[in-house]
């Protein structure tokens, strides 16, 4: 990385609210290029809301959000399309279009944003399918014929279709078995290195937090506390202490240390 770290996402003074219910208040968050940022927080702390606000599904009540040097509010249709082609989003259940096959799903952004020939488009689709670790025969299947893990991989392939610079993941390992979850973590880490992605990941999975994140943003009291795992372990806030020193966290730390010893 360069000496001057480039922030691909800059959020300052963000406030989101539904009616009189304030979710985030005066929240600041910077995401650096090339890092994997985990977003954690208790249920109802607004992790998914934060993600939705960054990607423009939610309008903030106050504050500014800048993604890849562009303010996300008040964009023209064209500017907003350009910005949206530079990030990819993987929703919790994959959010594949149910009336399209996996291959057609991946081709939706390719058809919308590029003028690739059919041949080239098929080649790119095949590349993305194998990138996400799916066998080639899934391409003609419909989402309803896939297992949960495969849906997520197919959703990831679609999110990666345009080689985005930022990848947003909403609970990528939720609902996967531990082996599947670990494989998915590896896949994300692998893709992140190869494609030099910036990854913002909402997760509850302590194992994935320990395995692949560079920094962790904790949503507490409507604000963000950010730091590396070590820094957060030293943080005296009771919720953070509970989170990183609870029984599950201890188990995850142990597994992580064991794997490191083996390596």
């Amino acid at each position, binding site marked *: 990385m360069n000496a001057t770290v*480039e922030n691909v996402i800059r959020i300052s003074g963000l406030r989101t609210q539904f009616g009189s219910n304030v979710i985030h208040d005066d929240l600041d968050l910077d995401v650096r290029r090339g890092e994997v940022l985990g977003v954690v927080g208790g249920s109802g702390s607004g992790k998914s809301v934060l993600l939705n606000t960054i990607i423009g599904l939610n309008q903030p009540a106050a504050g500014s959000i800048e993604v890849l040097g562009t303010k996300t509010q008040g964009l023209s249709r064209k500017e907003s399309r350009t910005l949206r082609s530079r990030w990819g989003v993987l929703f919790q259940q994959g959010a594949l279009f149910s009336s399209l096959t996996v291959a057609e799903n991946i081709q939706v952004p390719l058809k919308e944003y590029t003028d690739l020939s059919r041949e*080239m488009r098929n080649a790119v689709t095949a590349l993305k399918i194998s990138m996400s670790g799916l066998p*080639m025969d899934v391409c003609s299947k419909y989402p309803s014929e896939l297992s949960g893990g495969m849906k997520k991989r197919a959703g990831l392939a679609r999110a990666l279709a345009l080689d985005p610079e930022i990848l947003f993941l909403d609970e990528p390992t939720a609902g996967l078995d531990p082996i599947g979850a670990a494989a998915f973590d590896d896949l994300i880490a692998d893709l992140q290195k190869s*494609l*030099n992605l910036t990854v913002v990941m909402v997760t509850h999975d302590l194992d994935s937090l320990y395995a692949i994140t560079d920094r962790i943003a904790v949503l507490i009291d409507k604000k963000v506390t950010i730091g590396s795992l070590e820094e957060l372990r030293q943080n005296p806030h009771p919720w953070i202490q509970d989170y990183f020193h609870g029984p599950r966290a201890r188990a995850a730390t142990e597994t992580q240390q064991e794997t490191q010893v083996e390596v």
Partner: protein
Amino acid sequence: MEPIQSTSSRKAADATLEHRIDDGVLAVGVSGHWVIANANSLGKLAKEINADGAARAVIDCSGLERLDSTGALLLHKIRQKIEQAGGAVVIKGLSDAHRPLLDYAAAIGRGTALPERAHHPLLAMVERLGRGAVAACHEARNLTNFLGMTVLSAVRSLLNPGEIRFVSVISHIERTGLNALPIVGLLSFLIGVVLAFQGADQLTRFGADIFTVDLLGVSIFREMGVLLTAIVVAGRSGSAFAAELGTMQVNQEVDAMQTMGLDPVDILVLPRMLALVIAMPLLAVFANLMGVAGGGLMVVLTLDISVAQFVERLSSAVSTQSFWIGIIKAPVFGLLIALTGCREGLLVTGSAESVGVHTTRAVVISLFLVIVADAGFSILFSVLGI
């Protein structure tokens, strides 16, 4: 280390691909932005590379500014093409930032191609027709199966009347019968008005105004009243049954029921079926009355016929038999609607989208069955000479 992608926009910037042969060495020059936006033109250029007769090839990547996975795939394909033609390939000048991506594309790009599905459009049409026919046969078989299952359960319940869930039956009668009264009544009334109006229009030409009452009475009592009721109920309750049971299926409530040793047919299907079998004839009677009322109003207002004349004519035109011929069909229609609705509901699998599909199917199939059954009744009655 420079970031692979600059923050500039995705607009196609320059990308070039040069190639020439020097002393049997194929020199390929790669420069500019090898990204998805340029993939089309680069793909065309790559096709022009003639790899024959080159024992060695050098791909010079020193001018490469940006590379994404599509660009890496192209680059890998060029390398592969030359290697397949028998040349040894050296890649030089590739920056450290781009190397992992090319390695990655090389590692996973092996043998990745979408399988092409070749089919003749005419053949596909015949195939679809065949599949449709087979599916219809399956449907008929499965529905018969389900009917058998429900009848068994009904017989069992009738032998042990204590097992029938009367509260549930009553509640379904309320929802499917009582709550349907306004819409069934209004529609029948309007159809009565239309029938009387059309009949009067034709019959007055022959001076046979009074036969409008016969036309109205016979068609409402024998056919229209009950058919209209069935159509409304299929749209209202058949779809509701499918959606309710489907949602329960999605939430695994039906599975939970089975693990507790409860039979979903006893608990979910039978009460709905009984409710419709009871509610349909009652609704049909109401529909008949409203239809005659609507038609009667029209007749009295537009023709020179008094209320007393109308009532007298009606009672001579419509026999008790006509009334029963209409009403006897109602429980059968109710049975068909409940059966299709519940069966489609129980066929729902897992997803929310499946609920929508099966709800639609429930309405279409039950309407189809109701009209087929009505035709069957007509044939039966004409054979019996009623």
